[in-house]
């Protein structure tokens, strides 16, 4: 029990000072000290009333309330994790109860409070995991006393995409615990399919399939590429498991024989005893087009950038590459006769008077024209090829590029999006990770998932040195140096063509330093398609908020234009698998963007069309396809721990992540939400008590009687 006051401290202080002053004056004036004392007691009582005293009875229980939540979604049972978690919780429950008030929950799509930990796996909800929704339900159910949530799950969150940092809003630390180890299951899964956005009629295209092989000893797995519509098998490949749990790539080669969009599926033939067959198939779309993009790549000096970029472009079925790299300079010594060298003459004359016009894009990497007998008209031809013929030019850095390559003052400089102020551009040495201000730009969209795209740019391997570029007015700076006022990547349109300037020629580090070269490949594909205005590089481009959707999920579709639009109308149509067309409303989301939201129905191949128009005149068009998987597809195909999400939840909420079987209650205890554990249980106001008023009344009456008896002086 303790006494508390509701009146603010400042008022209390003021009242006390006034009472003291009045008391002092009274002391001097009043000779009868008993009256003074009497009045002071009454004044003190009045002051006490003004302070609104109340009595508080405190709880004797100082233990924090901790929620233990267990994921009981289908993926947890398929992988055998649910039973492992139940056993683990049963082992630790006794210890937890000694330190905390523990409340148990199970969840899949929604959280449910349960009395006994043994009942965790008593129910098996057939709904996709929604970790965010479940945690909020637990948060609300447990109330203010909740000091932390211990979360056992595989973290395969299969609900709508959300802000990845939502866990911080819970205002309570979450302690994700990886749910046990996966039991030795037998499973073949198609984890991902990597293929070019489009392929060419009568040209083979390689489809790289990442296959997950688990518990198969030496079984032979047959992979089939099928036409998703007809079921016809187009290509097959067999791969033998090694016995270990592994992911491996298998390449299926297929030669399309007709133009248009092709819906394909990769299937792994089911094996006996597989825990699930849902993940044995993945669908995707491929646009079959007629022609290739012709790219001319000139490089001043062999190096890793040339090797990596050339290989990437050579492997892109959409690109026909002609490249020249200068293998020997005049100052190099020839130790053998010319017939023993593989050198060929550099056909500068035919390239820049005739052949240039057959190309869609020109790459100049670390290349100076000054050494190769460039006539002035060749430089003029490059400029007019860009501005009049719509050619795409990219100049890549290096010690012989930009100003250092002598391009300043030439017609080529006039089309570059950067200023070449000095004959020898400054070069920034050292490793740096470029800052991408607009990850949504066509070139910078290296992942279809917006959040993942931004995260990728924040974690790409560092580049090594770059030319100190300064963007021209009107040019778009796509990437800049993190601590120098220097542009790294700029782009703009000149006449009918597009020009890009890239200050660094060490982007190969993005391939070699990443877990997969996919991001590097995508970046360069984007660059080529931007330069050539081909494929997705249209006036508008659609981007979904997730790479994969399940039936019944809602989606957010962003349509991005390459420039600002005023007075334009955006029309978006969704074509369902049944062929039914539905118009979607597109809301403006800035000068360049529109946002569409909707909900997906049955699983299957959806198509989206976006058309931009002004006063009835078309100004842009894009289309995209989306393969929607059944509602429980992810639950029945993702059987591994999603550790990045678990770590994000822990980091954002102020908790800690524990790998399977490493749960540490001591560490949890140190991170629990700090709050006054002697929490208020009952607060009773004293100043409203009639007894107080009776005492006051008696006091005033007594003082009146006293004055009557002894007089005022």
């Amino acid at each position, binding site marked *: 029990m303790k006494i508390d006051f509701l009146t603010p401290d400042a008022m209390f202080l003021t009242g006390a000072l006034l009472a003291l002053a009045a008391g002092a004056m009274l002391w001097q004036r009043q000779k009868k000290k008993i009256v003074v004392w009497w009045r002071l007691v009454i004044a003190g009582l009045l002051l006490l009333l003004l302070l609104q005293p109340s009595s508080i009875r405190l709880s004797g229980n100082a233990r924090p309330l901790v929620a233990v939540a267990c994921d009981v979604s289908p993926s947890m049972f398929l992988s055998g994790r649910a039973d492992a978690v139940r056993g683990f919780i049963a082992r630790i429950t006794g210890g937890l109860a000694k330190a905390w008030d523990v409340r148990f929950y199970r969840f899949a799509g929604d959280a449910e409070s349960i009395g006994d930990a043994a009942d965790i796996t008593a129910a098996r909800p057939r709904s996709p995991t929604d970790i965010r929704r479940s945690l909020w339900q637990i948060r609300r159910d447990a109330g203010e006393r909740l000091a932390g949530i211990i979360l056992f799950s595989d973290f395969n969150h299969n609900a709508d995409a959300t802000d990845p940092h939502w866990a911080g809003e819970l205002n309570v630390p979450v302690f994700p615990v990886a749910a046990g180890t996966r039991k030795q299951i037998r499973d073949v899964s198609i984890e991902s399919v990597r293929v070019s956005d489009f392929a060419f009629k009568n040209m083979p295209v390689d489809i790289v399939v990442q296959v997950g092989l688990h518990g198969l000893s030496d079984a032979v797995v047959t992979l089939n590429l099928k036409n998703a519509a007809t079921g016809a098998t187009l290509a097959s490949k067999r*791969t*033998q498991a*090694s016995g270990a749990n592994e992911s*491996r*790539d*298998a390449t299926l080669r297929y030669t399309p024989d007709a133009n248009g969009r092709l819906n394909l599926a990769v299937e792994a033939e089911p094996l006996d005893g597989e825990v699930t067959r849902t993940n044995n198939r993945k669908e995707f779309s491929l646009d079959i087009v007629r022609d290739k993009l012709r790219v001319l790549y000139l490089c*001043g*000096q*062999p*190096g*890793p*950038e*040339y*090797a*990596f970029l*050339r*290989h990437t472009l*050579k*492997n892109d079925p959409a690109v026909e590459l*002609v*490249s*020249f*790299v*200068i*293998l*020997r*300079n005049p100052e*190099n*010594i*020839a*130790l*053998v006769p010319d*017939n*023993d*060298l*593989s050198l*060929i003459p550099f056909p500068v004359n035919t390239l820049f008077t005739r052949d240039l016009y057959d190309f869609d894009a020109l790459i100049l990497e*670390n290349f100076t024209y000054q050494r190769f007998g460039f006539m002035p008209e060749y430089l003029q031809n490059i400029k007019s090829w860009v501005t009049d013929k719509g050619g795409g030019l990219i100049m890549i850095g*290096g*010690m012989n590029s930009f100003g250092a390559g002598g391009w300043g003052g030439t017609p080529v400089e006039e089309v570059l999006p950067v200023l070449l102020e000095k004959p020898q551009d400054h070069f920034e*040495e*050292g490793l740096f990770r470029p800052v991408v201000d607009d990850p949504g730009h066509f070139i910078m969209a290296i992942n279809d998932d917006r959040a993942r795209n931004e995260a990728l740019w924040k974690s790409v*391997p560092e580049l*090594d*040195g770059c030319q100190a570029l300064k963007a021209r007015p009107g040019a778009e700076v796509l990437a800049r140096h993190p601590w120098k006022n220097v542009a790294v990547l700029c782009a703009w349109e000149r006449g009918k063509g597009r020009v890009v300037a890239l200050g660094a*020629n*060490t982007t*190969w*580090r993005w*391939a*070699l*330093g*990443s*877990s*997969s*070269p996919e991001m590097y490949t995508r970046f360069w594909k984007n660059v080529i398609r931007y330069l050539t205005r081909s494929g997705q590089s249209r006036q508008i481009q659609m981007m979904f908020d997730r790479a994969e959707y399940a039936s019944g999920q809602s989606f957010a579709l962003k349509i991005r234009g390459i420039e600002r639009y005023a007075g334009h109308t955006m029309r978006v149509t969704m074509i369902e698998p049944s062929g039914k067309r539905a118009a979607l409303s597109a809301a403006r989301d800035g000068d360049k963007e529109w946002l569409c939201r909707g909900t997906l129905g049955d699983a299957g191949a959806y198509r989206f069309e976006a058309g931009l128009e002004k006063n009835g005149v078309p100004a842009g068009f894009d289309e995209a396809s989306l393969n929607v998987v059944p509602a429980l597809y992810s639950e029945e195909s993702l059987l591994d721990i999603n550790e990045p999400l678990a770590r994000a939840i822990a980091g954002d909420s102020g908790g800690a992540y524990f790998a399977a079987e490493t749960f540490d209650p001591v560490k949890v205890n140190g991170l629990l939400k700090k709050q006054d554990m002697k929490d208020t249980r009952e607060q009773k106001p004293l100043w409203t008590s009639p007894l107080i008023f009776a005492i006051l009344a008696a006091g005033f009456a007594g003082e009146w009687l006293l004055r009557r008896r002894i007089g005022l002086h």
Partner: protein
Amino acid sequence: MILLRICAVVLFMCSTLAAAGGEQRDRFVFAQLRYGTTCDPYPETWQDIIEFLATTTSVKAVAERRMVSLSDKTLISSPFVAVLGNGEFPVFSGSERETLRRYLSNGGLMFVEDSTGLKNSAFDVSFRTQIAKVFPEAPLKKLPPGHPLYRSYYLIRKVGGRRLNNNYLEGVDMGGRTALVYSQNDLVGAWAKDRFGNYLWECLPGGQEQRFEAQKLTLNIIMYSVTGTYKSDAVHRPYIDMKMR
């Protein structure tokens, strides 16, 4: 006289450093895999290789050797790694196998050489066992005579080396390029010199001509790492075919 020699050495080092600078940027780095105690049979030869490269080609190289292990962060800055050895090839752990696989799949090139100059040496047997575990689906294959590596700079008509164990190189192909090149002829051994600048080993059976072929092939392997399959492009074929006749 000694003072004069010291001055000359300092002058050479300064000129080398001035030419190469300390930064890698986009330049070629001669990286070599560090493992066990038998990984560096020729600790000095890289200097001659780099000098030969810089003198005869337009490749700009860093004037230092980088020793890397599979767990080093600098591995991702080293698109070319030489692996030499005259003992047993190391047994890779699971994570090292994964690193090696990722390195080669992502664009790195590894030149592996059995420096013993012997057929079926301990290095050869253990290397083949290990590499079969790393790439169960992509076995070592002989590089055919028309392989772009034999044409990347010099037109190689005969394979050289300190010993002529094979008249071919072997390799592992990944995604349309050869990511790992394997030699049993001790190409790097053909470069080895003593402190007076004399070659350390005789090249058998072909002598100096065989040594020069080894040096040219070493250079071609490096050029292949920085140009890829460039010399298989259609634009080169008529010229190369004409020269090879």
